[in-house]
């Protein structure tokens, strides 16, 4: 087990180097001279020369790459180009709001989707099952933008049940007042695909021999579904949920943007709009690191819930 973890961590190094290289190529080479982007449209040659020296882009590429690698390792990406706020500070302060919205969203949507999936899979082929699946398919096809625009207009602007947008200082106020409508929209958007997927997971289990055995020894249908079937279906479900976890770090871009939630997702959009390269670079690299770690955790979790799995 330990050997496995060490090997996996070791394998992350080339991938991380690849991510660094990719980001470096994108921002220092494809994107042109960062000095011009930073200096803006009106700038003298002298200013540009100054900025180039400050950023180190007057050095050869391998020196620039080394500077970037040092930045990643020391977690010091300097300051944002547009607000001069330290990038590490941006990352630290934007994480909280993102998680406030996304952790409850992920928990509620997973639980609801599991419950519904067990229900519709139990009555598979019936009118209810088909109706739910049709609603899911159509619901999936409507753009998330439409949901956000309509819900924000209707529930917040028209009915006034929720604030139209905003964010406060206290955690509970944020969670109850400001985050509830975003969470509701997130649920509408995320339950449909989850339900469709989880339903197939449950259907894979529902015809297995152990279900017949459980029924033959007289167990209640509830116990069969919620204990026997769910336990087995939870293996792929957990993998799927773990794979979604890195998404928590970048947040729901659009929801954060519409509701002015100061999270990482909104920060990314702002940074792209302002060509704020250090912020995008930092967020991309760290989210990639987090993704790799979560993938490893998912594999370990997989082993924990299913002892048959052999980690290689």
């Amino acid at each position: 087990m330990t050997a496995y973890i060490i090997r996996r961590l070791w394998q992350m190094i080339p991938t991380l180097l690849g991510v660094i290289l990719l980001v470096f190529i994108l921002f220092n080479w494809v994107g042109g001279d960062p000095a011009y982007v930073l200096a803006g449209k009106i700038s003298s040659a002298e200013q540009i020369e100054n900025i180039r020296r400050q950023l180190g882009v007057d050095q050869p590429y391998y020196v620039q790459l080394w500077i970037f690698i040092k930045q990643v390792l020391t977690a010091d990406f300097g300051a944002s180009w547009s607000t001069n706020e330290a990038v590490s500070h941006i990352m630290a302060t934007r994480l909280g709001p993102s998680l406030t919205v996304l952790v409850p969203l992920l928990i509620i949507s997973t639980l609801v989707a599991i419950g519904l999936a067990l229900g519709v899979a139990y009555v598979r082929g019936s009118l209810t099952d088909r109706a739910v699946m049709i609603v899911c398919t159509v619901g999936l096809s409507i753009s998330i933008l439409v949901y956000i625009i309509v819900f924000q207009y209707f529930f917040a602007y028209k009915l006034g049940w929720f604030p139209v947008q905003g964010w406060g200082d206290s955690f509970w106020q944020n969670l109850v007042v400001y985050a509830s409508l975003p969470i509701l929209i997130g649920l509408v958007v995320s339950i449909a695909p989850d339900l469709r997927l989880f339903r197939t997971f449950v259907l894979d289990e529902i015809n297995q021999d152990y279900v017949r055995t459980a029924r033959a020894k007289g167990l209640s249908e509830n116990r069969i579904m919620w204990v026997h079937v769910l336990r087995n279906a939870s293996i792929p479900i957990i993998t799927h949920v773990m794979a979604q976890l890195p998404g928590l770090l970048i947040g729901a871009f659009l929801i954060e943007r519409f509701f002015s939630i100061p999270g990482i997702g909104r920060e990314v959009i702002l940074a792209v709009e302002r060509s704020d390269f250090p912020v995008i670079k930092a967020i991309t690299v760290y989210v990639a690191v987090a993704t790799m770690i979560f993938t490893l955790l998912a594999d370990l979790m997989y082993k924990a819930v299913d002892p048959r799995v052999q980690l290689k």
Partner: protein
Amino acid sequence: MPYDKPHAVSPGLWALAWRRLRADKVAMVSLTIVAAFLLLMVLSGTGLIAKNWSKEVGVNYAPPSFVGADAETAGNAAGPTASSAGSPESEAPTELPVVDPLADALAAIRGETQKSEASGVPGADSASVDPLADVMADIRAKGSKAEAVEARAATLPFGGDKWGRDVLKKVIKGSETSIFVGLAAAVVATFLGTLFGAIAGYYGRWLDDIFNWFYSVFTAIPYLLLILAVAAVLQQKGMFTIILILGLTGWTGCFRLIRGEYLKHKGREYVQAADAIGASNARRMFVHIFPNISHVVLVQLSILVVAFIKSEVILSFLGFGVPVDVVSWGSMLNEAQNELILGKWWQLAAAGTAMALLVTAFSLFTDALRDALDPKLK
């Protein structure tokens, strides 16, 4: 003899799949819808329809009215009433076409001219005599033009936007952009994924390692974040740029599947046979193996089109997608966001519905296609 009838060839994979697809009602309906959208895209792309979508044909925020003929006849007498009757939701009658304050005067002038014409004086003579003839003609021309605008405004089935452009035409034009971007990007991504997957799966060893490294790098960065990062770098906007962004970042899923297929197929007997008759590696890869896995590629392409249409809409909405002079569903939704506060819901409804219809049909068709091509899965 079993070979009595040389024409009794057993149907191939595609013929069988098509037969299964034909039997599937949902598949045929969704295929029809998808085909209709594609036709719309081609017609609009070649300029046959919705060519002058950017022309301001109606009043600002003209509400949708389906009763074209009625409104047209009523348009002369009471244009505003007719159009507001057409949309019970509209809350701001002041923003609707207001009756021309000069209409009465115009009517009086027109009445007089008609009277003078009716009194027996020939029109040509009156023109030569009347010193006001030029001005009159001008006024008359203006009057008829104003009427024409009102009449046309009253027949916009999907309403008008901020500048009075026909939303129906915008939706058609937006469909062209969004579907074209989705298709083109999906072709690019599937091509890359298939090529990389074929090379990695077929040759294996160090080539496989390299492509797997690429794969792990691209999948380590969440998809939308990667797209936004590339969009931040590529400053010049354009359809080509967004196709490139989506295509270059979206090949990973296709790569993994195709690589697996090539791994599976390269050891099969028919490939060994091809080797024995001296087929080159490239020939074995693309002439012998590829037709056997092309159904996987087709399903991947179909999945990617839907995914990319959705991504394009989001990117264009955020302003990182198509340039401002090109209309797409995303840019329409962006405009609609502010219009909704004013109670102008029709552009949102039009763009949202068009997209939902196409995406629903396309996903249902993709599912049916997969079932038809690989009946074992069902």
